[in-house]
């Protein structure tokens, strides 16, 4: 078939050129020496002026990690990682502590500007400085994390007035020690898995969110992660606690420079939702995916888990995964509260040599708990993508319901898509549904679009966006637009 040859050629032509976030920022860094041992952990803890209990917590995690083995069950392949050959602390040289926008290194501000991340409060509040052709955005509070350190958090005043705490977690350790101590590791324990243990030992920063009883967070919260330094890993830790009847919508985005070597990103995200609380957590993951030959790129080994502790609480994960050389990630929900709801909406795109093994776990513990899983997988080039999901219904979860839909779209004939659903039901009154499809973009569809004047690339973009619509519509409005563009860019040249 001529179209297949074309696909191959087109995919081969596709190189790093399409990754627009691959620049590097030249900035003075404070680096810990390479290697991981107790001293490294003590150094991190000292740099962050942490209390004794946290250092002990880290060391316990480190010792647990030493006893653990890297998980091998995911359908991803990569050479062994030398955990001693990386820096575990990298921070822009600046005085520590909270910063206002005026105090932030202008070079950093320029970096975020280049990434299109709004850090200017006034400009956004007043609705001025909107680039031509762009619609005015709703204000979004942003925590910007550069390598291991949070450099600025915007809109803190507005949020404080509403009673919402949104700050770097390192700061929360100092200012809200009781809250952090109570919830840190309560959803993802230090010894949960290899990468979570590693993260617990060496995490440097991340975001902390606390929404008190009955408060609807007045604006979207977001964190933008940026890996910049060479030979560093990024280990951020996010903790979001939402009290009774409160709600929050949170978005994380991430990018990294293009480098030949692989970099490790092992984050932990913990969510806690109390009675009638709701948390919407959206991710647009755009770490550097490596070049067309599979050189470089981020290893994205992430543990994300939410606990629906209170009755009728709700946690909704939405993720658009376009980046990273390898993605290993299963945002999960522990549905403990009676009638609590877990949702997982995912689009995972892989191109060139990318590998993704991603999915979710829905653990039904409470009665009448419900979960929905919609996973869309798009594979192009020589990439490989796996949906791996677990639906577990425990004996007491009478009336539990799950609906799972997994759809795969293949572009070209050298990629792979796999669906691995695990279902464990221990309650006969539960209802579990699973649907799965695999399809290819048909020649008919492409020709139809091109006959109407669309280029081949636009046609693929349109069809892929249509395929992902059920997931994209779950994203906050303005991020949905961003995600749509990102999908198209990720698949540039992969026509077939």
């Amino acid at each position, binding site marked *: 078939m001529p179209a297949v040859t074309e696909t191959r050629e087109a995919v081969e032509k596709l190189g790093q050129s399409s990754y627009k976030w691959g620049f590097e920022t030249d900035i003075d860094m404070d680096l810990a020496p390479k290697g991981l041992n107790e001293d490294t952990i003590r150094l991190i803890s000292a740099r962050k002026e942490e209390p004794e209990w946290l250092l002990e917590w880290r060391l316990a995690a480190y010792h647990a990690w030493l006893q653990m083995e890297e998980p091998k069950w995911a359908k991803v392949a990569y050479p062994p990682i030398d955990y001693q050959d990386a820096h575990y602390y990298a921070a822009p040289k600046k005085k520590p502590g909270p910063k206002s926008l005026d105090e932030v290194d202008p070079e950093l501000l320029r970096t975020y500007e280049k990434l299109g991340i709004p850090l200017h409060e006034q400009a956004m509040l007043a609705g001025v400085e909107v680039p031509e052709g762009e619609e005015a955005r709703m204000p979004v509070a942003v925590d910007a994390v550069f390598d291991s350190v949070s450099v600025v958090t915007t809109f803190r005043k507005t949020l404080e007035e509403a009673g919402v705490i949104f700050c770097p977690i390192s700061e929360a350790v100092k200012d809200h020690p009781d809250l952090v101590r109570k919830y840190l590791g309560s959803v993802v324990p230090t010894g949960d898995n290899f990468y979570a243990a590693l993260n617990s030992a060496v995490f440097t920063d991340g975001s902390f969110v606390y929404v008190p009883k009955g408060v609807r967070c007045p604006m979207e919260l977001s964190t933008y992660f940026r890996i910049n330094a060479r030979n560093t890993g990024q280990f951020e830790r996010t903790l979001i606690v939402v009290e009774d009847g409160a709600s929050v919508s949170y978005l994380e985005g991430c990018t990294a420079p293009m480098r030949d070597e692989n970099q490790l990103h092992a984050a932990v995200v913990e969510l806690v939702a109390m009675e009638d609380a709701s948390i919407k957590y959206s991710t647009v993951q755009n770490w550097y995916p490596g070049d067309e030959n599979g050189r470089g790129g981020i290893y994205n080994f992430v543990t994300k888990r939410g606990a629906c502790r209170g009755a009728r609480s709700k946690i909704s994960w939405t993720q658009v995964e376009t980046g990273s050389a390898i993605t290993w990630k299963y945002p999960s929900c522990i549905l403990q509260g009676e009638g609590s709801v877990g949702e997982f909406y995912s689009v995972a795109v892989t191109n060139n040599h990318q590998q993704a093994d991603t999915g979710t776990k829905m653990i039904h513990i409470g009665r009448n708990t419900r979960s929905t899983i919609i996973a869309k997988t798009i594979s192009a080039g020589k990439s490989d993508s796996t949906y791996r999901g677990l639906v577990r219904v425990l004996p007491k979860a009478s009336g539990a319901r799950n609906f799972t839909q997994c759809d795969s779209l293949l572009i070209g004939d050298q990629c792979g898509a796999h669906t691995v659903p695990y279902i464990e039901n221990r309650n006969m009154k539960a209802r579990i549904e699973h649907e799965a499809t695999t399809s290819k973009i048909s020649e008919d569809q492409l020709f*139809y679009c091109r*006959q109407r004047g669309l280029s081949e690339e636009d046609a693929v973009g349109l069809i892929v966006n249509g395929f992902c619509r059920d997931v994209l519509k779950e994203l906050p409005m303005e991020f949905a637009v961003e995600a749509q563009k990102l999908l198209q860019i990720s698949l540039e040249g992969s026509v077939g």
Partner: protein
Amino acid sequence: MTQFLDISGLCARIDADGQEKEILRGVDLSIPPGEVHAIMGPNGCGKSTLSYVLAGREDYEVTAGSVTFHGKDLLEMEPEERAAAGLFLAFQAPIELPGVNNANFLRTAVNAVRRARGQEELDAVAFLKTAREAAKALSMAPDMLKRNVNVGFSGGEKKRNEVLQMTLLQPSFAILDETDSGLDVDALRIVAEGVNRMRSPQFSALVITHHKRLLDYLKPDRIHVMAKGRIIHSGGPELAEQIDTEGYTRFLAEAA
């Protein structure tokens, strides 16, 4: 004189299950601007293949002949370039695009073509206004713009959607491939009126059909009979009447 559309000695084949099959065997056809021509002929004579080859479908290999369109070599152009140059094909079996909103698809197409023609793009509001008016003129339910492209459309709705696209894309040359098939009497009239509204000295059409009824509405300038990959007979509108009563037997015998 160079016509608006000139097809000369066009031969094309398709690779079906490893076997090369000659389908067009020397098509000669010229359509002047402002004229509507019809092609009739028995099943499998190559009518649809001709429409696909003109629109640029890659499954077909052109082995001989030429096609000029507005003085340019049509066969050298990509499908989307042909669309931008003013060629439109109303599909016999319109394709479904799951999850793709019809209005969004139409606007993307209209703006792609406008961009290529050096015209200003339409914003969402202006486009929707035009699209709604055009849909109304075709007696389409308002929600058809909100639905996914052709997904769950009835046969008649799909055909109307094709005519709607034609109306919005403003081609200078449209090929209607059995747009009348599967339509009831009322729908046929609405679709025919939609095509007739396009008629102007700058618009030509090639209508592929089995039925005289559509031609009664469209009043074509010329009718061509196609058989075994060639045009074997051409005549005025009266030919439709003759085919309707006598069938193709006489033309086939004459050609043999």
